[in-house]
């Protein structure tokens, strides 16, 4: 018997979806088999290496941003500019929430798009921009590729980041 993780009803072995609540019972991520244009993150990190000839000369994490970042919300076409920090936590604000995200995505229908309250964080370190999933329920994708939670992933200008189902394109202006 397979116990449905969602509604705890027993399903017959071999069932692919729960007959009670319709939840998917098998692990599958077909998107990983999609043609995935490899982002030129390798190139970017090598640039960074070149940019730091001497160890210790690395731009301090707390320094001011030397890149400006904007988010282009794919569905609504709106552009959001990020400024004033080196790290931005994305999520949505709900009542009685102890930790608030830096960027509240509620105005962009975050709830129905499956964005968690603390979903992902975007970091800027020198020339590098990185995204980390904060253990969200519906996951974070970079160019359609699901990323592992709590690990930094480099992102580049033009990459599409998906929080749950909310899609935005990241625009980096060096």
């Amino acid at each position, binding site marked *: 018997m397979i116990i449905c993780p969602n509604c705890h009803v027993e399903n*017959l*072995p*071999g069932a*692919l*979806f*729960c007959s009670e*609540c*319709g939840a998917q019972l098998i692990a599958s991520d*077909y998107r990983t088999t999609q043609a995935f244009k490899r982002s030129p993150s390798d190139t970017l990190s090598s640039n960074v290496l070149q940019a730091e000839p001497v160890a210790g000369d690395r731009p301090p994490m707390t320094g001011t941003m030397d890149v400006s970042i904007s988010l282009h919300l794919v569905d609504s076409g709106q552009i959001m500019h990020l400024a004033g920090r080196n790290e931005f936590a994305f999520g949505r604000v709900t009542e009685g929430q102890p930790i608030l995200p830096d960027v509240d995505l509620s105005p962009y229908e975050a709830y*129905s798009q499956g964005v968690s309250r603390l979903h992902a964080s975007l970091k800027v370190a020198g020339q590098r921009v990185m995204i980390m999933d904060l253990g969200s329920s519906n996951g974070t994708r970079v160019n359609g590729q699901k990323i592992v939670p709590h690990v930094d992933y480099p992102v580049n200008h033009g990459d599409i980041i998906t929080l749950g189902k909310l899609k935005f394109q990241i625009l980096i202006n060096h």
Partner: protein
Amino acid sequence: MAGDFYNFLGLPFDASADEIRQAYFDAARRLHPDANPQQEAREEFLRIQQAYETLSSPEKRKIYDRSIPESAKVPLTAAMSIRVSRSVIPLMQEPQLLYTLIDINCTGEMDPSRMPPSAICLVIDRSTSMRGERLEMVKANVAQLIKTLKPNDLISVVVFSDRADVMVPPTLVRDLDKIHAIINSLDTGGATEMYQGLEVGVSLLLRSPENSLVRQLILMTDGHTYGDEEDCFRLAKTAAEANISMAAFGFGSEWNDGFLDQLVSISGGSTVFVTSSKDLQNFLSQRLQAIGVVYASAVNLAIAINPALEIRYAFRLRPDLSPIPVESPIPLGSLQYGKGISVLLEIYVKSIPVNTRELQLGTGRVNFKLPSQTISHGRLPFNICRPVAPEVEREIPPAAIVEALSKLTLYRLQERARVEVENGEIANATKHLHHLATHLLARGDRELAHTVLVEAEHIQQSRRFSKDGDKRIKYGTKALLLLPGPGVE
């Protein structure tokens, strides 16, 4: 006529000796004078005996085959593929489920010059309830769309209320001139007695040439029929035997979708739910377009399932979406050029005996008729067999199966809620509708999710589905399966 012996037995020219014997025994059992005393049956019985005598002897068959012109010996251009949710079946004494996706595709190129004309009969409800918007929809679209048929197709129009009238007798499409005026003169009045209309429609189609590409009856109605359901089913069976298929268009919220689904499934047809003039235009033009590109008609799937197994559910994913009756043979409608037929089966395996190495799920044949060819029968035999092992690796089932099931599960959730409402299990029905709404929301289908939630509330108050919401949910969840074509790789 050349090749008739093959046609009598319903065989292709390259049939094997075993197939010939089997076909003869099947036909003989049906037509033997002891079983079937009718005069026509006796004549047919003599014909198949004569055919068998020739074809069963290799020498006689060789001579007979030489009399058939080479042009009649066209190899089949259809193929099928079968995918099972597990490549290796785990050896288990406890019950398990398997999913099987059967795809039948036409691999050939269409040759329009060889395609015989089709015969189409529109059977239109003119009962009082059709008055106003609904009849206007029909008037606005029908006359115009009929003209998209091929010039030598035969079209007829029957209108019915409590009696039926032939409005347009079978006419070649190119000879239609006053069709607009005729359709526009339609007026309403009377009750809905479907049998009347269907009976006249079928009798008109029976007069069309037997080798028509498609003989199809398209029913347009908005109501219930009372008391003549059994007659309608019988008529549909007779019609299906004569290669006449039926499709139904339901208008508004009052029509009896359950009855019509059952009626048209006898010939492998499907029903659609028309809510606007645009719907009618889309559905009707799709339906008429599909007629012109048929490769094989009267396709059916004869499957002998392993007796230890049970088909729990069958659904056709292409070309028309519809649940299909679990029986053998399963009628599947027609196979079009460039658009295959896909059927998904849910198979229940009760227990696999210890020491089993291989499990045969089922054997069978896909049978069909090829209206454009002299030897007009085709078949594709298959045997679904998978190895069994005590230890199996985790595997991801074929994407097409998962994709189709992800949506079919939603359709089945509403089907289940429907049964529960009938049994008075309101709490369960509401719960299942809520689950359905959650999935629809997750997919971003907010409008349908909203309809489902409203319906769940309605059920809690009145203990039954509202007539409109009922159909919106059924046809809405069914339509989810349309994109992107499952089974297409």
